[in-house]
């Protein structure tokens, strides 16, 4: 419904008229990926707020950004589906929590910030890592426990990090990342860096006590912390109404303002994050609740269909899929043809397949890596293997 309104409004907008001459000649299509002519798009729904003003529903974007969104989200989608296959082929072990369906949050957030801003999240971290600049090889190699992995095979699916992009993981303990994120914000303020931290957590983690402790400290000390609840409506197998007396997560900050956002709309996410960053730098913590959805179960061990209906899942896929939304936007604004978008998707499939092939060839870590990085400064102390008379090492 919102999209048809968009289509009709775009055909009468000046910006679409400007684009029309460009559309006719195929050879002139090449500049589309760098075209930064402003386009205004309305978000799917208005924002709802708690203790603050709402940002405008009209979002400034352009062809370049929309195509980047499409490409990045399609890449993430393909990556997560490929990870599903690798897990079933037993090349990925242990835990694997997939993000397909939630891509708009990672992509919209990244579009609103710089690499000086920090992001920290829980264990559903593959796409957030890629949004921060991680490569497909680093992802697949880490998932398969190989040397080329972002944590050199020693972390696994839940422990991706990229410090040079201010991405701080990757955390397995539900809720722990929220105080850690507030700590990053503290350090940014302490260092006078004029940047913010986005601490992401799920609707399951939203009930954690330490979250409220960290929010209290952040509000007392005016920390530039943005708490982002990725509400996919299920904490593992428990629906939000069974876990939270109040599932209005954007209001749970009480004294801290909050905003409810359509997390399947990358432009709405971008708008909300821009708003939140400005707020947090001036006024301290704010909560963003991203209304989103995961197509997979909680993890690869969870079919995801015992606590929700298949109709619900397919319904969301049909009505609210984030990649499809951007595809429709691009097509309705005549920014690219269907074939061009399909070609991008073909390219992406190849990229993903190539990365997987490369990762499969990559070796497991050397045995000596068992004993590296226990400390940053090893002091020459000894560490032991299972049989200390057989395996000992000096910690580097």
């Amino acid at each position, binding site marked *: 419904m919102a999209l048809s309104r968009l289509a009709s409004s775009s055909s009468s907008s000046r910006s679409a008229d400007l684009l029309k001459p460009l559309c006719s000649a195929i050879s002139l299509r090449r500049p589309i990926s760098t075209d930064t002519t402003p386009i205004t798009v309305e978000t799917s729904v208005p924002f709802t707020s708690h203790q603050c003003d709402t940002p405008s529903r009209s979002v400034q974007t352009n062809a370049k950004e929309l195509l980047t969104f499409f490409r990045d989200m399609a890449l993430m989608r393909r990556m997560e589906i490929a990870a599903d296959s690798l897990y079933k082929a037993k090349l990925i072990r242990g835990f694997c929590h997939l993000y397909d369906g939630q891509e708009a949050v990672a992509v919209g957030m990244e579009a609103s910030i710089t690499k000086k801003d920090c992001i920290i999240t829980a264990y559903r971290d593959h796409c957030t890592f890629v949004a921060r600049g991680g490569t497909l090889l680093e992802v697949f190699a880490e998932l398969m426990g190989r040397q080329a992995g972002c*944590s050199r095979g020693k972390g696994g699916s839940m422990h991706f990090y990229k410090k040079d992009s201010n991405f*701080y*993981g990757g955390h397995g303990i539900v809720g722990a990342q929220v105080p850690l994120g507030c700590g990053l914000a503290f*350090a940014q303020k*302490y260092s006078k860096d004029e940047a913010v931290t986005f601490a992401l957590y799920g609707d399951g983690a939203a009930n954690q006590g*330490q979250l409220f*402790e960290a929010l209290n400290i952040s509000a007392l000390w005016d920390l530039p912390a943005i708490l982002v609840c990725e509400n996919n409506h299920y904490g593992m197998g428990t629906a939000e109404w069974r876990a939270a007396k109040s599932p209005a997560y954007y209001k749970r900050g009480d004294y801290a303002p909050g905003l409810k956002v359509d997390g399947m709309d990358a432009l709405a996410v971008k708008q909300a994050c821009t708003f939140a960053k400005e707020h947090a730098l001036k006024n301290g913590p704010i909560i963003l609740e991203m209304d989103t959805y995961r197509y997979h179960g909680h993890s690869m061990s969870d079919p995801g269909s015992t606590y929700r209906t298949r109709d619900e899942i397919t319904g969301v896929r049909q009505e609210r899929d984030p990649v499809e939304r951007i595809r429709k936007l691009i097509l309705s604004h005549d920014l690219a043809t269907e074939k061009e978008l399909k070609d991008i998707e073909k390219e992406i499939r190849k990229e993903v397949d190539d990365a997987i092939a490369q990762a499969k060839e990559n070796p497991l870590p050397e045995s000596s890596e068992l004993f590296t*990085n226990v*400390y940053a400064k090893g*002091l020459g102390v000894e560490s032991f293997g299972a049989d200390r008379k057989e395996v000992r090492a000096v910690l580097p």
Partner: protein
Amino acid sequence: MLGIVRQKMLEQSLKKIPPAVSVLRSYSSAAKQMTIRDALNSALDEEMSADSKVFLMGEEVGEYQGAYKITKGLLDKYGPERVLDTPITEAGFTGVAVGAAYYGVKPVVEFMTFNFSMQAIDHIINSAAKTNYMSSGQISVPIVFRGPNGAAAGVGAQHSQCYAAWYASCPGLKVLAPYSSEDARGLLKAAIRDPDPVVFLENELLYGESFPVSDEVLDSSFCLPIGKAKIERKGKDVTIAAYSKMVGYALKAAETLEKDGIDAEVINLRSIRPLDRSMINASVRKTSRLVTVEEAFPQHGVGAEICASIVEESFAYLDAPVERIAGADVPMPYAANLERMAVPQVEDIVRAAKRTCYRSVS
């Protein structure tokens, strides 16, 4: 003749002075006395002065001047941006501190006692200790967790536990336990400068005790190495290994044992993790007998680890079974007589040492 008597008396009295006697002899100036409290306060002050990334966080560390006055004067000197009073929310503020350390600043977190650290233990272990390893060296965690540990006087079961063994079992942490003022200064400075998470276990009952400190110890660059124990008293008949307050008890036990012709070597562990296995083993290879002393619960404790290390590395050198003296295997009672039975006393250490020498203990 009088001169010889006076010399003998001087030698006797010198032997009674606890640590740093040898250090005293090499400096001509008269030994300064310093309490543990002042030692810790001066160490914090100097490290904050030297590195603007160092800051303090904890309950009552600022305006109250510290629950035990360890952080006295630091708020006035460094301001509220660097000395932060937290709400009573250990899980929250410990997580905030660890996150700040991820970014590269250097928090020194005070737990009012380590009993309250249990509320934050997930952040100490899972967020701090393991992160450098899980990130393959990308994210180091330069944080210090400090505060009083172990039994105080009459504070009951929930306020008296010693956490040395729990923290020291975890790879990725460094765990220190100072005894003297020299230890307090040198080890706290080392801990703050160290890029890894350090658990720094103080003792409330020692805060007011004075120890001699040399000019070297008082210098702002003074630092002790992490992972190295100290021989507080050289001996040849039995090794007594202890940490924190029990070092003082071990030294008193050594005096008593000396009267019975047993020459005890007292080791001040200083570092629980890394444990100075080579020094302890070298000592036991010399003496052939071991007594470990700790205030903590006995099961799966620091003493158990030391005994295992000796049995693994120096079995052939032992002339007697290893002995452990530890706190009683019960929650700490309140009544004074029961409390006395729940912690080691000097006579317990003496008795155990005599057992290793196959001497009658009656």
